[in-house]
C-alpha cells in the first residue's frame, strides 16, 4: 500500500492489497497506451479519409516529357476541368514531383536528369463524386498510356486496416479491464479470508454486510485510484515521448496537438473509471461472499 488509511479492517496487513496498486498501475498503463494508440489511429484515419476521398492522380508516362506529352497533359487537364464533379485539377510542377521521389532516390542521385512522369492532381468538388471509370476512359483516349489512379481504393484498404487495428486496441483494453476486475476479485476474496475474525466481530457488533462491503470497496477504490494515477501518468509520458519522436519524422505534430481536449478528457477519465470498476467489483464480491459465509 502506498498511502495508509484508517479503517476498521486492518488492510495494511493484507499482502494482496499491497500489490493491488502496482498491478492496477501496470494494467492502466497498458490500457492508456492502447487507448492513446486507438485515438491517434482514429485521428489518422479521419485525416486520410478526408484527404484522400475524391482524390485522383493521373500519370502520363516518364518517357513522355516531351512537347507531345505536354500537349497531351494540357488536353487531359482541359478534359478533366470539363468533367462534372471535378473541383480542382492541377499539373504538379517538376520540383514537386522531384520532392515526391526524393525519399526513394535520395538527394544526390541526379534525379533532376531522370525522365519523370507528368502528374496531374485531381480533387472532387465538395460533396461531388467523380465517375473514375468514365474519366479513366476519356484520359486514355486523350493520352494513350496515361494511368488514372483513384486514391479512394487505396485509402479504403488503409482505413480498413486502421479500423481493424483500432478494434484490436479496444479488445486489448477490454481484456485488460477484465484482468483488472479479476485481480480485484482475487484481492478482495483474499482480504475476506485474512480478515475473517475482524469481519465476524463487526457482524457481532451489529454491522450489516453493506457496512463491511463499504470498507472493502473504499479500500479497492483508494488502492486502484493510486495505481491508476501512476499508470496513466506513465502512459501520458509514453504518449508524449512517442509524439515527440513522431514529430521528428513529421508523422504527427509534436506533443499537445495529438489529442483534442475531448480526447484528453477521455484519457483522463481512465483512472476514474478504473477506480469505480474496482469499487463495484469489491462491493459485489464482498456482498456475495458474505451471504455465502453465514
Amino acid at each position, binding site marked *: 500500500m502506498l498511502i495508509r488509511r*484508517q479503517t*476498521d479492517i486492518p488492510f495494511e496487513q493484507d499482502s494482496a492489497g499491497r500489490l493491488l496498486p502496482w498491478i492496477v498501475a501496470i494494467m492502466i498503463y497498458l490500457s492508456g497506451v492502447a487507448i492513446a494508440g486507438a485515438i491517434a489511429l482514429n485521428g489518422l484515419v479521419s485525416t486520410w479519409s478526408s484527404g484522400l476521398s475524391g482524390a485522383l492522380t493521373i500519370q502520363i508516362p516518364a518517357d513522355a516529357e516531351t512537347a507531345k506529352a505536354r500537349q497531351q497533359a494540357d488536353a487531359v487537364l482541359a478534359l478533366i476541368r470539363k468533367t462534372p464533379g471535378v473541383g480542382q485539377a492541377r499539373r504538379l510542377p517538376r520540383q514537386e514531383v522531384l520532392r515526391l521521389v526524393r525519399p526513394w532516390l535520395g538527394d544526390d542521385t541526379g534525379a533532376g536528369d531522370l525522365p519523370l512522369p507528368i502528374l496531374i492532381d485531381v480533387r472532387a468538388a465538395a460533396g461531388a463524386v467523380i465517375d473514375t471509370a468514365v474519366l479513366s476512359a476519356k484520359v486514355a483516349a486523350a493520352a494513350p498510356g496515361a494511368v488514372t489512379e483513384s486514391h479512394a481504393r487505396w485509402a479504403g484498404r488503409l482505413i480498413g486496416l486502421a479500423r481493424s487495428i483500432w478494434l484490436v486496441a479496444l479488445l486489448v483494453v477490454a481484456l485488460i479491464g477484465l484482468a483488472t476486475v479479476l485481480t480485484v476479485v482475487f484481492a478482495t476474496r483474499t482480504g475476506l479470508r485474512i480478515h475473517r475474525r475482524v469481519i465476524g*466481530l463487526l*457482524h457481532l*457488533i*451489529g*454491522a450489516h454486510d453493506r457496512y463491511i462491503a463499504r470498507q472493502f470497496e473504499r479500500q479497492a477504490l483508494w488502492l486502484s485510484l493510486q495505481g491508476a494515477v501512476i499508470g496513466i501518468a506513465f502512459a501520458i509520458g509514453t504518449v508524449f515521448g512517442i509524439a515527440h519522436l513522431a514529430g521528428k519524422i513529421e508523422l504527427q505534430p509534436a506533443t499537445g496537438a495529438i489529442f483534442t481536449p475531448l480526447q484528453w478528457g477521455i484519457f483522463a477519465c481512465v483512472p476514474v473509471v478504473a477506480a469505480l470498476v474496482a469499487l463495484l467489483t469489491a462491493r459485489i464480491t464482498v456482498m456475495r461472499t458474505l451471504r455465502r459465509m453465514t
Partner: protein
Amino acid sequence: MRYGAGPEVLSDVAFSLEPGSFHFLTGESGAGKSTLMRLIYLSLRPTRGLVHLFGRDVATLPRDSVPGLRRRIGVVYQDFQLLDHLTAVDNVALPLRVAGARGPDVKKHVSELLRWVGLGERLGAKPPTLSGGEQQRVAIARAVINRPDLLLADEPTGNVDDNIGVRLIQLFEELNRMGTTVIIATHNFGLVDRFRYPRMDLEDGALRLIRG
C-alpha cells in the same frame, strides 16, 4: 446444542429473562457458559430447541434483521476481541460507527466512558500496548457504549484486581438500573456472593436457577 458430531453441550436449558433483570451465570469450565452466551448473542444457532430474543424466534429471523438485534446486545468477550490496529477510543467507538453515528460527540462520549473505567490516560493507546486489565476495561466500555438492552459479559473481571472488579460490576449495575438486562458469566464466587443477584448454574448440560 452440539458442535458437529460431538456430544451435546447444552441439553436441558430452559429459562426466560425479565427485561431489566441481573443474573450471574456460573458453572465449571467446559460446562457450556460460553456456548450459552454465544446462542444468546446470535453467534451460534441451536441444533435443536428454540431461542427467542426480544420476542423473536432467532431460527426464523431474516438475515437482514440480525444486525438490528445484535446492536441491542453488548458483549464482553473472554478474550476481549479488540482490534489491535485501532486505538482504545476507536475500539470503543466501533459499535457507534457501525450504527451510523459520526462526529465529535462520538469521540467526546467515548472519551468520557474510558475515563470512567480508569483509562483516561490511555485513550490513544492501541491494545498491544495495554495490560490485560486495561484491555478488559476497553472491551467493557465497547460493550456498554451504546447502552444495550442486554449485556453479556464473559468473565469480565478475570484480569483485574478486586477493586476494579467491584467497580466494573457497579458499572453494570448502573446500566441495569437504566433498564439493561445483564448476564455475567464468572468464576469469581467472591463477587457473586457480594452482589447477591440470582444465579444461573450450568452443570452437565443442564441449567439450574439459584436465587441470590
